[in-house]
């Protein structure tokens, strides 16, 4: 089991490398670079520009620049922001907790609400409740996360005035205010994942509930609730987990725009700003962190697979 995890961790590294290579070259195709942004458009001469560029290392061929960046990364140096001069690592350290909080709460909410709804729909199949929820879920998948956020702002912040429309308070500073600020963004981000999970749970549960062992358990006198949550759900988990992993990347993309809507000081918004400002080190550093985050999530999902389905670990052992 441990060796599997280590193997998977190692496989992740070349994957990440390729991601960074693709990103690096893509970003360096951007017209203009931070030097032109710092000096402004017409106020400086070509000489000054070239001098600054060579100072910042832009005159070297792209692959040399990449190797330089890679070397720095491995030494723990994520680089310095061109615009502010502060280390990239600092900015990431400031922004990452916000994004992490948003994403983890969204996943949590999606699972906590999505699975029970899916189970209810499967159990009360074709009833009014099933149709009602299924319709909502189908709409939920079609909804852009940031628009859901805007709607939530309209209802809860503007009309009912019970929740703030934007801003962020760190958890350590004031837990209650932090949660108050995070509720709407989390709900908005989690909707698409929640809908996917619920639908998947419903169809997987329907498959499982049709099987014989369910009937056996019931005739032995087991309460329905225990049957659903203990026996049926276990078997249904695998397709559910598969659909989660497919949706994660989309959800993180959605969280980026949600950060913009609610003006949360997270990585997503930071990266968008950095892209517009041509601040390469920040874009590369944050892109790397996001990529690592997603890959770690996938890894996590893989591990959960192995835990849930003992067949998988047995096969690997051979």
């Amino acid at each position, binding site marked *: 089991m441990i060796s599997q995890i280590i193997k998977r961790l190692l496989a992740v590294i070349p994957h990440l490398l390729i991601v960074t290579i693709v990103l690096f070259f893509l970003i360096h195709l951007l017209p203009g670079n931070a030097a032109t942004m710092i000096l402004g458009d017409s106020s400086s001469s070509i000489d000054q520009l070239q001098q600054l560029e060579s100072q910042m290392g832009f005159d070297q061929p792209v692959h040399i620049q990449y190797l330089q960046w890679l070397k720095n990364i491995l030494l723990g140096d994520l680089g310095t922001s061109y615009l502010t001069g502060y280390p990239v690592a600092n900015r990431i350290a400031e922004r990452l907790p916000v994004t992490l909080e948003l994403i983890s709460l969204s996943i949590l909410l999606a699972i906590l609400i999505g699975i029970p709804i899916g189970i209810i729909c499967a159990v009360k199949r074709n009833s009014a409740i099933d149709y009602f929820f299924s319709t909502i879920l189908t709409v939920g998948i079609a909804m852009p996360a940031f628009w859901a956020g805007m709607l939530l702002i*309209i209802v809860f912040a503007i009309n009912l005035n019970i929740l703030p429309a934007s801003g962020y308070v760190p958890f350590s500073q004031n837990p209650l205010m932090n949660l108050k600020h995070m509720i709407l963004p989390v709900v908005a981000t989690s909707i698409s994942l929640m809908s996917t999970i619920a639908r998947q749970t419903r169809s997987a549960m329907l498959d499982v509930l049709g099987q014989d062992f369910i009937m056996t358990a019931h005739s032995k006198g087991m309460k329905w609730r225990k049957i659903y949550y203990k026996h049926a759900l276990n078997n249904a988990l695998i397709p559910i987990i598969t659909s989660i992993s497919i949706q994660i990347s989309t959800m993180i993309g959605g969280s980026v725009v949600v950060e913009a809507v609610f003006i949360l000081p997270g990585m997503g918004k930071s990266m968008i700003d950095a892209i517009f400002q041509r601040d390469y080190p920040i874009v590369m550093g944050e892109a790397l962190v996001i990529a690592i985050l997603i890959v770690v999530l996938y890894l996590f999902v893989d591990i959960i697979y192995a835990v849930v389905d003992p067949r998988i670990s047995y096969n690997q052992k051979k």
Partner: protein
Amino acid sequence: MADKAAWKDRSWYKVVKKLIGRKTALFGIVVFLLLVFMALFGNHITPYDPATPSASEMFQPPSATHLFGTDSMGRDMLSRVIDGAKITLIVSVIAVLIAMVIGTLLGLLSGYMGGVIDIIITRLIEAISVFPMILFALIITTILGVGTQNIMIAIGVAYVPAFTRIVRAMTLTVKEREYIDSAKVIGLNRAEILWRYVLPNVYSVIIVQASLAAAGAILSEAALGFMGVGVQPPEASWGSMLKVGYNYLNNAPWMSIVPGFAIVITVLALNLLGDGLRDALDVRVRAD
């Protein structure tokens, strides 16, 4: 060959019939056709001119005269939404076409050739798809510049992995079939085999993926438009309307509700259409 044509006619007919039979898929088709109609003839059915500002009618809530209210410049929202359908659909369709062509090509190559080519293409595709598509499309837009044309390319490129993966899987399935061996024995070269035998089988998978990708493309256009990198004024897509509406959530929420609602209905319709097509075409892909 004449047999093949007759058979094809009949199977298409069956597919369409099966598709219409499902109510949800039917809803999808109807809405989609309605949208195409709006895109083509929008100019004639808008109650007001979507582009002319009117200072006296700013910020009007929905009423009998303005079904969806007016925006910050006094323009009728209903007309704006109908007009916006055109651009939104065009962006979505072209992006999907780009993704489809490139993705199918890569998928066919990767699946049929195997070996090193397969490994390179698969690794590249994996690397691209790890990344949230919105950020990827954003970076591409920043390289190429803002504007309608460029987000079509950006979204198209971002959706290539979806097509590549599924075409590759289908190609792998088809590759194992006997008639491929027969074709090789006859002496057809690789390109001909791909074109004549593999591709026709891959069609159904591509069509399903295309409608789902179109749905996603509209969502992506909305997000990019919201961030201001998409369609530029005076043109308006539903996404860029949301960008403007964001500033007026307080006094004119309908400016944001209406375009968003249009987006949701469209994406919903395309999703249902895709699901319906998947069932009607009865696609089965060998999982790899």
